[in-house]
């Protein structure tokens, strides 16, 4: 164990030292080059470590995915767009696509909306830390434990056996018969119940980030406006919201992508039964259970294409921001 402790300490102290040294060194090198070349080279030197990691761990596998998406399961020949055609004509995929869309919309709306609400409200109470910790705790619980908690919430026992699930027990005390919650697929009700589980966990995430951004707003701005007689709502719409907009964009984009990748909750609570299947789960099934990396890769590429609109919006926002700055 001693050996590993030494390695860990070397890494924790050494890597930052190496990085700082690297930057310092590159600056010295840049000083030797002409004035004009410096601002052209410097960004790439600063980006190099990050880009190296990204290329090895994310880009390289994705390129592999792209190639494999055009191949058959055994990887022995190219089948063109067959895998994509399979995905879009498969009944199960269409349900999964619908559900993933529901996840995208509902999860983002709930987590960002509630996260913002909580961040703003607790900003004004003295027990702010306690409140934020309470909302944050679910994120600290592992996915599996969270799924277990909510399994107990949604549990259904055959009457007349006593209800162990919180929701059904609540119904019981009101005299209503218990319901098998996660089996109800009408109006995608059970999918939404699953989204609620994830929203319970991730609202804390949005709250923390939005809270940090909120703290960054100069209080004098708000005071000056209050002195001028602005109402709280006007303050929010006119000052707070616009200043939060960039961070909101970050949070929304991140939640949209997280929603598309979500599958842990579905896996533990229903495993895709009762019409709760989602696209990310299909990907993993194809890849590891059905040994069809071709189809799995095709699904991955579909996800990649699905976020292009979100990315385009981000670019537009940056360009607009640059113009103001």
């Amino acid at each position, binding site marked *: 164990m001693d050996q590993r402790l030494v390695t860990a300490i070397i890494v924790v102290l050494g890597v930052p030292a190496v990085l700082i040294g690297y930057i310092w060194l590159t600056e010295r090198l840049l000083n030797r080059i002409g004035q004009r070349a410096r601002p052209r080279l410097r960004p790439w030197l600063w980006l190099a470590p990050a880009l190296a990691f990204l290329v090895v761990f994310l880009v390289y596998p994705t390129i592999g995915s792209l190639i494999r998406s055009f191949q058959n399961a055994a990887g022995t020949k190219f089948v063109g767009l067959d895998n994509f055609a399979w995905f879009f004509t498969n009944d199960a995929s269409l349900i999964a696509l619908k559900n993933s869309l529901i996840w995208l919309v509902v999860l983002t709306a709930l987590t960002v909306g509630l996260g913002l609400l909580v961040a703003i409200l607790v900003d004004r109470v003295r027990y702010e830390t306690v409140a934020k910790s309470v909302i944050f705790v679910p994120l600290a619980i592992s996915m599996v434990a969270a799924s277990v908690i909510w399994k107990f919430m949604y549990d*259904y026992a*055959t009457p007349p056996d006593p209800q162990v699930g919180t929701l059904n027990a609540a119904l019981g005390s009101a005299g209503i018969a218990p319901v*098998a919650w996660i089996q109800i697929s009408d109006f995608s009700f059970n999918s939404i119940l699953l989204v609620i589980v994830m929203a319970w966990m991730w609202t804390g995430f949005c709250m923390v980030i939005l809270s940090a951004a909120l703290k960054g707003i100069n209080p004098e701005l708000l005071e000056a406006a209050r002195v001028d007689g602005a109402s709280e709502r006007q303050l929010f719409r006119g000052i707070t919201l616009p200043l939060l907009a960039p961070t909101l964009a970050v949070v929304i984009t991140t939640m949209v992508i997280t929603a598309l990748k979500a599958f842990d909750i579905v896996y533990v609570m229903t495993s*895709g039964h*009762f019409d709760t299947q989602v696209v990310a789960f299909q990907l*993993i099934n194809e890849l*590891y*259970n*059905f*040994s069809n990396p071709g189809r799995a890769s095709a699904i991955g590429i579909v996800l990649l294409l699905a976020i292009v609109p979100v990315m385009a919006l981000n670019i537009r926002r940056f360009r607009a921001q640059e113009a103001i700055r």
Partner: protein
Amino acid sequence: MAMVKPWETQTGATVKYTGTRDLNTVLTTGVASGVLPDLAGLPGPGQMNQWADSLVDLGPILDVATYKSETAAPLVDLGTVNGKLVGVFIKTSVKGLIWYDPKTVDLSSSPPATWDALQTAITQNKSKAASPWCLGVESGAASGWAGTDWIEDLVLRQAGPDVYNKWWQGKVKWTDPAIKTAFQTFGQVVAQAYGGATAVNATNFANAGDPLFKTPPGCLFLHQASFITGLGGFKTAKSGTDYNFFPFPDINAQFTGAIEGAGDLFGMFHDTPAARSLMAYLVTAPAQDIWVKLGGAISANKKATDYPDDISKRSADLLANAKVFVFDASDLMPTAMNAQFWTDIVTYVQHPDQLDALLADLDKTQKDAYAAP
């Protein structure tokens, strides 16, 4: 882990064990990259076939002659791919046993030998329990497998081992009348199940038999494999007094004496002296006895006889002396087919009126899953 203790003491080596629900992920990435454990439990014969190239040939490692004499022939064959023995069964089970509480219905002296006799028994004893059948198919990602066991037993006895084998090989369609009849019979059972379709889908298979032991009894019979004795309400119940079983009755007199079994395969990925020694040890009768003594498990090794009670011994005997032995059909199908089968059971329980659509869907998957890559 208790099973490996004697080996550890004897050899001085240690076994490091990791259990995971993501076995498929670990082994698939492992086979592709070479990062593998020395020994591993294999998810099923299908995957074993796929990874045959990465698995070590156990022929030179085990005393094959002894292994073959101690193990039922079909199980040896299932572990062999292209003449290479790569998988051994560490645990087996007998499927399709009908469990009952002798205090509710005493059938130990004359168990029903035919399906009709079973139905008569049900009618005669209807008043003694809330429902004739206990059934629960929930099982996480594998939900539905308890229902597939039902269908397999029905196909085996309604249509015979020949159709059964052609079916899992993909040569008999799902829309074939033989398969459809099996589904419909299963549907009748669901209609007679404790708690109805909602409960069937919501109840975990391990606890599905608990109503057998309630007062008043919730059901008369439970269809389940031999390993149920180590789970749920069976764990605390007394073997023989609180529960007993009889094998699945014949339906078609032509196809009598067939037994369906299943088991857990083990394979070796790294040929090291320690791994060889451990593998050779695991298949011996003394090692298997450790498992078996705990109850709820049957050994593939005919010489492992340290069963804790009469019931386990009887089920082991059924396996060893089966006239016609077939392996769990769904385990033999390609994974994608198997997964669809499981899922469609869940859907069928909830929506029995959709049977034709479901079978047509299964046909589509069949075409896809069995196609040569």
